């Protein structure tokens, strides 16, 4: 057994471990006996013991050995109970190995597997994204039907996770759940729909994959995300790119018009002669008619490419430069199937490049090139020599290259190709030689000019010493001769002589067929051949025997005098042959040719039957018509439909409505369009630096962007206060906008009304009559759009690195602009943009100490927002967080007392602003006051001690705090949704103070905007254990709505949710780290009685929050 060596190694390693662990008595025997099957039982006993010990290292060692067993395909299922106990281990590696094991065996041991589920459920709430992700991965890999609902819940939750990595794994889990229980399809589609909207490049590939598996026919889900996907594509990871490109190819085939529609008509008109394979001639009448119809349509309406079609082509093109062959192939097939003929050429170079890669890659690429060369030969002609064959190529590659060379052959290059073939024929690789001869035959049939040259060459090969070469030549010559037999009777004679030497059955059969078919050209030789054959009949192979019978029959019909007896002899031999085919044939032939009284009318036509003029064979490429399979697919490679293959649809006759791809923009125009822009910045750090911005892809971006701005611009006519800000971006994309405008007008003509336009009209009508109901409706829609937007900004700002990077990028950009370039126009433009972007940044991620340059914009905007809101809302306490919390209401806590701090006092408050470097952190504003008489220098943090999972972003060092002065700084703490304190040392240049910050539970959340309906829906999902109700009597001062709102929002960072009833106040928020919803309802009754209800999936938070709010309302 080859594994013995491995076991020995293991034994050694084990011994080393055991040296320090004398406590395991059985292990001494295990090393020696390990490799033998008979001791399987014993060995597992030993493993079990190791697993049950309380030494981590032993457990780990045991798991490693178990993984080794699994890797060899051995059964380790009986260890399940011992292993499953370790699933909650703290040791990461041990845990990982247990996961590996669970995934493998959970299906076999369902009951036991269920024991581990709770661990995963707990891990799904872990503050660390990687633990959440791996818990989901494993949970969803356990193929136990009972846990389907749990999986479903977990997926839904993970799809809304803040971490894109977790969302990515949730997309993967969708497929797993779908294959486990297809009944969940509808619900899963909802999740897919949600994830498709995700803006993270990390998620895009995975969710499209899930889409392809679960609901590939729901093309409608793609519309709204189409442009986003196109624009994200460059930055998606390689594997995701392949999946997205393939899906978009299919999408484009359903949504756009054939860009080659005019050309294909031209081709049909004139190209019949040029097509060697006569594909056009074979077409049915009605198909032609159809084409003619299409032609008529095309003539009426000149083809204009849909801008979205163009966008796709433009954004995929750079990926031809990818190092990943699969990506290059995906783009190549996209161009082949979607691009106008004139543009397809760009892919040739990239594909030829792949021929330098591993031989497997070459194999697949050549297959696809072979198909392409049939349709579009010109594309690869310049690269002819790249397909030349080396003697060191593997045979399968040689044959494919030969195929491509043959397809590329035409009148101009045939002589070079034939010269090249000449060298191939001498190769030692006989299979390859045979293929070359076939190729020569095909060139000869296809190109009339060289037919004779080829034929002569092949005839020369007949004297080759290698029998295989001769045989192959005979077969090919036979086919060629059929085209013009009368000219070549000498060749036929020559071949007749070969029957003495050639033993390869196929070749013998071919020669016999030739002589029979053209026996009139060789009247003297033919009977002699038959004589020889009759002699050797019994020893021939079956195909040869059949041809002998054929020959005999034909000769009998043309020259019965000489051959009658011979024929009878042959037929008699055949009558007793072992093979029933041959017996049947003989009987059949005899009935036909030998006239008897019984034989019917058929024998009269015997001559016609046997010696009918047969059409010359068409030697065609095996790759002909393969392109009805999507290129690059497995189905194409196998030339058979593989399971799960999605047909590439035919182009539509008329393009479906292009406006479905227009993205509706929520009414908070300004912010959202800006946010989008910013987010694009974040997503595309590499291709969108200053120089790149003017490039074609960028312009595509701005095109789609402007689409949204125009939409939104039209939607927000009434909001004058913002127009000043808008103008900048409008300026930028003016031209595109015009286009868009035109398009939109067109759409308006065609289509009744789009949702956006609806709201626009609504708005304008509202301005006219200002009816209160309308207003309220408007309000609702407004708050709806809020929530959408809020979600967007959440998900996008979650990875902390992105923010960091962004600011860095801005800095470098500045630097570059400053140092390198003379201030050209584009640079200046860039600077302008840059400034704006910075201000945008700060709008979302409000820095507590903003740079002066930014401040005015900021205040201007928030002011304008506030005024807008005032104009729109019914009560001023509803929407804006700024209006909810009067700034004075922020409670200050003491961090360091003046006395203990020896003159330095520090207070902190939870500023309730999003902490920009990391959205998972709670912003804590520190206020330093130097009460002493000397300056304090170098104030900074040190020695941060935290509970696991918690993180801290330190405040920037304060270099100098003069005596008597105050200053403030902001730090971020990720409390992991717990009220554990963050301990650290506050250090000055002389002293250190131990301090700690403990958050009240109400600060662990941030407000979210929900509509009444959403609130109810979410509340409905958080029932049971997740709901806590308390009865209370309200404080006397706190019996009106305003006061309640005030007190609740002071106690917890929540936002008000609109509510139809005036007896109820509702609030909503999400916990900062895990983003779990927190819903609070205060229902008032008579006489100050009230009921408080908190719904939160984090029960601890819920309970604590109830306590805090109760306190706030009753005091």
């Amino acid at each position, binding site marked *: 057994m080859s594994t013995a060596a*491995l076991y020995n*190694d293991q034994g050694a390693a084990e011994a080393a*471990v055991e040296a320090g662990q004398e406590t395991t008595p059985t292990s001494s025997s295990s090393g020696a006996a390990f490799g033998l099957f008979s001791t399987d039982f014993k060995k597992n006993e030993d493993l079990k013991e190791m697993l049950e010990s309380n030494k*981590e290292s*032993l457990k780990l060692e045991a798991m490693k050995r178990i993984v080794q067993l699994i*890797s*060899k*395909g051995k*059964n380790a299922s009986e260890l399940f109970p011992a292993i499953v106990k370790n699933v909650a281990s703290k040791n*990461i*590696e041990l845990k990982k190995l247990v996961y*590996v094991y669970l995934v493998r065996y959970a299906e076999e041991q369902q009951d036991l597997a269920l024991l581990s589920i709770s661990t995963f459920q707990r891990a799904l709430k872990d503050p*660390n994204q990687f633990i959440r992700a791996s818990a989901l991965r494993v949970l969803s*890999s356990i193929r136990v039907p009972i846990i389907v609902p749990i999986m479903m819940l977990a997926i839904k939750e993970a799809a809304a996770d803040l*971490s894109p990595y977790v969302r990515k794994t949730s997309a*993967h889990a969708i*497929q*797993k759940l779908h*294959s486990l229980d297809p009944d969940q399809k509808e619900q899963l589609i909802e999740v897919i729909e949600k994830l498709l909207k995700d803006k993270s490049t990390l998620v895009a590939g995975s969710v499209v994959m899930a889409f392809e598996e679960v609901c590939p026919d729901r093309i409608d889900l793609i519309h709204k995300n189409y442009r986003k996907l196109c624009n994200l594509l460059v930055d998606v*990871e390689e*594997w995701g790119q*392949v999946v997205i490109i393939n899906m978009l190819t299919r999408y484009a085939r359903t949504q756009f018009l054939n860009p080659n529609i005019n050309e294909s008509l031209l081709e049909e008109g004139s190209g019949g002669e040029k097509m060697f394979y006569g594909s056009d001639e074979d077409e049915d009448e009605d198909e032609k008619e159809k084409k003619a119809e299409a032609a008529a349509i095309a003539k009426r309406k000149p083809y204009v490419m849909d801008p979205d079609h163009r966008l796709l082509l433009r954004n995929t093109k*750079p990926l031809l430069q*990818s*190092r990943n062959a*699969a990506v290059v*192939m995906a783009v190549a097939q996209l161009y082949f199937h979607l691009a106008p003929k004139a543009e397809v050429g760009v892919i040739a170079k990239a594909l*030829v*490049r792949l021929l*330098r890669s*591993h*031989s*497997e890659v070459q*194999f*697949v690429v050549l297959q696809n090139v072979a198909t392409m060369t049939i349709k579009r030969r010109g594309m690869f002609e310049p690269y002819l*020599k790249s397909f*030349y064959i*080396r*003697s060191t190529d*593997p*045979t399968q590659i040689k044959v494919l290259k030969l195929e491509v060379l043959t397809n590329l052959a035409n009148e101009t290059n045939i002589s070079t190709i034939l010269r090249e073939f000449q060298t191939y024929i*001498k190769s*030692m690789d006989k299979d390859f030689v045979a293929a070359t001869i076939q190729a020569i035959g095909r060139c000869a049939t296809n190109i009339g000019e060289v037919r004779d040259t080829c034929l002569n060459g092949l005839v020369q090969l007949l004297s080759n*010493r290698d029998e295989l070469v001769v045989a192959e030549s005979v077969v090919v010559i036979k086919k060629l001769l059929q085209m013009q037999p009368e000219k070549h009777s000498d060749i036929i004679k020559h071949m007749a002589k070969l029957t003495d030497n050639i033993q390869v059955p196929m070749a013998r059969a071919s020669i016999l067929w030739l002589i029979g078919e053209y026996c009139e050209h060789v009247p003297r030789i033919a009977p002699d051949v038959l004589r020889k054959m009759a002699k050797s009949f019994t020893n021939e192979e079956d195909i040869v025997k059949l041809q002998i019978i054929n020959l005999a029959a034909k000769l009998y019909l043309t020259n019965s005098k000489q051959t009658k007896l011979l024929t009878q002899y042959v037929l008699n031999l055949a009558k007793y042959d072992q093979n029933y085919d041959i017996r049947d044939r003989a009987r059949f032939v005899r009935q036909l040719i030998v006239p008897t009284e019984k034989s019917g009318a058929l024998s009269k036509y015997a001559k016609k039957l046997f010696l009918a003029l047969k059409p010359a064979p068409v030697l065609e490429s095996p790759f002909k018509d393969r392109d009805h399979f999507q290129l*690059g*697919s*497995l189905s194409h490679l*196998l030339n058979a439909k*593989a399971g*799960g*293959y*999605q047909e590439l649809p035919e182009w539509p006759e008329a393009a479906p409505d292009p406006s479905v791809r227009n993205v509706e923009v929520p009414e908070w125009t300004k912010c959202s369009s800006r946010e989008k822009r910013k987010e694009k910045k974040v997503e595309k750090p590499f291709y*969108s*630096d200053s*120089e*790149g911005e003017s490039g074609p892809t960028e312009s595509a971006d701005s095109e789609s962007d402007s689409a949204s701005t125009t939409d939104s611009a039209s939607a927000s006519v009434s909001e004058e206060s913002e127009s000043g800000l808008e103008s900048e971006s409008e300026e930028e994309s003016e031209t595109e906008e015009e286009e868009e405008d035109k398009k939109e007008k067109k759409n308006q003509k065609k289509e009744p009304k789009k949702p956006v336009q609806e709201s626009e009209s609504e708005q304008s009508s509202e301005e006219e009559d200002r009816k209160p109901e309308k207003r309220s409706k408007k309000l609702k829609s407004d708050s709806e759009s809020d929530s959408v937007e809020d979600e967007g900004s959440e998900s996008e700002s979650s990875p902390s*690195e992105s923010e960091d*990077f962004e600011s*860095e990028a801005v800095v470098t950009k500045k630097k*570059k602009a400053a140092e390198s370039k003379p201030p050209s126009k584009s640079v200046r433009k860039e600077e302008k943009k840059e400034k704006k972007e910075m201000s945008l940044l700060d709008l979302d991620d409000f820095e507590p100490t903003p740079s002066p340059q930014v401040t005015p914009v900021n205040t201007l905007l928030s002011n304008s927002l506030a005024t807008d809101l005032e104009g729109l809302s019914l009560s001023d306490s509803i929407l804006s967080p700024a209006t909810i919390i009067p700034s004075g209401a922020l409670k200050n806590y003491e961090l360091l007392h003046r006395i203990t701090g020896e003159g330095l006092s520090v207070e902190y408050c939870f500023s309730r602003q999003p902490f920009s470097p990391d959205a998972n952190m709670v912003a804590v504003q520190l206020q330093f006051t130097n009460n002493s008489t000397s300056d304090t220098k170098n104030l900074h943090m040190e020695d941060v001690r935290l509970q696991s999972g918690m993180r801290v972003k330190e405040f920037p060092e304060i270099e100098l705090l003069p005596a008597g002065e105050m200053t403030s700084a902001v730090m971020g703490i990720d409390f992991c949704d717990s009220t554990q304190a963050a301990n650290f040392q506050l250090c000055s240049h002389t002293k250190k103070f131990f301090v700690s910050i403990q958050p009240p539970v109400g600060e662990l959340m941030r407000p979210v905007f929900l509509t009444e309906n959403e609130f109810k829906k979410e509340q409905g999902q958080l029932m049971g254990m997740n709901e806590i109700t308390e009865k209370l009597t309200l404080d006397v001062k706190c019996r009106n709505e305003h006061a309640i709102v005030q007190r609740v929002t002071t106690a917890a960072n929540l936002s008000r949710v609109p509510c139809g009833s005036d007896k109820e106040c509702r609030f909503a928020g999400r916990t900062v780290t895990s983003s779990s919803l927190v819903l609070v309802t205060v229902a008032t009754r008579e006489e100050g009685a009230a009921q408080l209800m908190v719904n939160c999936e984090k029960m601890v938070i819920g309970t604590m929050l109830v306590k805090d709010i109760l306190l706030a309302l009753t005091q």
Partner: protein
Amino acid sequence: MEQQLDGQKPVQKASPEMIHSLFLINHSGDIFLEKHWKSVISRSVCDYFFEAKEKAEDPENVPPVLQTPHHYLISIYRGKLFFLSVVQTEVPPLFVIEFLHRVADTFQEYFGECSESVIKDNVVIVYELLEEMLDNGFPLATESNVLKEMIRPPTILRSVVNTLTGGSNVGDTLPTGQLSIIPWRRAGVKYTNNEAYFDVIEEIDAIVDKSGTTVFAEIQGVIEACVRLSGMPDLTLSFMNPRLLDDMSFHPCVRFKRWEAERVLSFIPPDGNFRLMSYHVSSQNLVAIPVYVKQNISFLETGSCGRLEITIGPKQTMGKMVEALMATIHMPKSVLSVSLTASQGSYTYDITTKILIWDIGRLNPQKLPNLRGSLSMQTGVPKPEENPSINIDLKIQQLAISGLKVSRLDMYGEKYKPFKGVKYLTKAGKFQVRT
């Protein structure tokens, strides 16, 4: 035992994941590792592969894609090992092939080589890697920079320490790389010596015919980088003559737009070794062929011997020294032995594989290396139809044969001054002389 288990299970409906299982098979056809991402597929599925392997004789000739009644087998051949993956549904074959190569690359990087013994020795790490690289059949983390943060590569020292202390190969801190905006670079890289080296390596692919004329020639180049820089450096590499490049592919770190607009390579590099770009210089007349080969190989029609004479001389070497010159000839099967004299270097002839290797070394333009002598042939066998072709290997230091030159390397984003260096090397790629 494992097959019994499987036999009981009914055939499942095609499941959606791209890659279902992976089998590693050695040269002699033993399956020495299997990994299933979902339900177990019996090893017996490999029988179809073995059948094809048997038929193909040469492992290079095993079709990379095979169809079996219930599955499709997609395989690659790397380092005398077959990586055989099982898929059940439509998937782009290149996707799987590319991924398998990436797996092999990762093994190579982790263990220094990709061989059966090394994989067996590190089976636990291999399993952990495979688990991270593929989730439900879909590639998850394939960047080695990210993987290395999650699973530490073994070093001799660490494995000793691990065995003594029971330590682990898994990183203590969980990775942040996956989420960084640049997936190929780890965060928080620190070096005391900051250095960035670039090797411009060009290979000449050529077919030269009997008479010495070039049938086909092109240059394939790569730029291999070894970058050890702290922090987040942003590099810009520019060329004196970028127009030379005909076609190229880039590491994902390269900003394509910058290249399109300015023909400079602008990138935030991965940490460590990586291939920055590969390129292609075509146009036959541009390609300088550094050596010429005069050869005369003949097999006599009668009698059982043949003659061989080869002389190699410098052609267009741009004034540089040609080193590591070597000629390899695949002799016809009927050549039993050779008796030759080499004026320089030494030759070996392998009787089983029929490969003649002449290792010449440095090419001395004053005294051209020459190999001559007789070949003894099997008696009674007709003389070979074709003369064997000669494959040439050579190296020229400090020269990029296409003339490509790096003009400068700039770094932005970090303050320190890195050591920078560019090396050039020209090699023979698939350089074949027909005889």
